[in-house]
């Protein structure tokens, strides 16, 4: 179990999550350091999104029962986040004068932020089922 989460399709998820943790994190750090006053909400949200991506990356790498739950939680938060922020940016553009990873459902990042948590949740459920099936035998 500790291993299965990061093997197979999990490797691709870890790579993509890692890239997003890095790019969202670096972007948020630069934005907060250089022009925090312009759009504090958007930049704090960027930092939060980066933290969620980082937690998901680590959880997928570590595996095991506890880390799988952590991964489930972070993928869920991510999906809720991208859907909420996506809707907010459609209806309330004034709240987000600058883009975040999750603005317009992740349009600026090729909609990967929208697809990624769905793939992540699918993989976690799939591994969970396979593990339970293995234990039952």
């Amino acid at each position, binding site marked *: 179990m500790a291993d299965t989460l990061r*093997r*197979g399709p999990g490797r691709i998820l870890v790579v993509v999550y890692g890239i997003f943790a890095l790019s969202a994190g670096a972007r948020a750090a*630069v934005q907060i350091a250089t022009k925090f006053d312009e759009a504090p909400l958007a930049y704090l949200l960027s930092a939060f999104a980066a933290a969620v991506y980082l937690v998901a990356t680590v959880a997928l790498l570590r595996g095991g029962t506890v880390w799988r739950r952590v991964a489930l939680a972070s993928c869920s938060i991510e999906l809720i986040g991208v859907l909420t922020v996506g809707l907010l940016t459609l209806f309330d553009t004034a709240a987000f004068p600058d883009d975040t990873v999750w603005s317009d459902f992740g349009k600026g990042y090729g909609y990967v932020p929208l697809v990624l948590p769905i793939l992540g949740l699918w993989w976690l459920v799939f591994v969970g089922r396979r593990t339970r099936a293995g234990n039952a035998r």
Partner: protein
Amino acid sequence: MNGTLSVVTIVLSLALAAWAAVTAARNRPPDRGHLLGLAVVEASIVALLGAAVASVATGGRPASAGTFIGYVVTILLLPVLGAVLARLEPTRWGAGVVAVIGLTVPVLVLRLQQTWSAATSG
């Protein structure tokens, strides 16, 4: 940033991504050819960055130095990461990792160009 070298890097990287995607679709692991492909992409990235460093002598500057260096480190490490994971995962998913890396490098080349020539939001 050197336009020709950027285009060469993007084309090579996309070709590698397509090849690796076909390999993954055929349920084959990545082989030596893919590792060689990653090495070629890395060499092309090094040439591109070398040209950028050389152009600093003639007055070229990144618009945002911190961001630019961040992208430089990331883009240099990506093919290496791809090679390591391709060795660790000798299944179709290893080829999938190479395909994802091949799709990410062109994005980073475009971002490098943006941070070099003009101020952007990030």
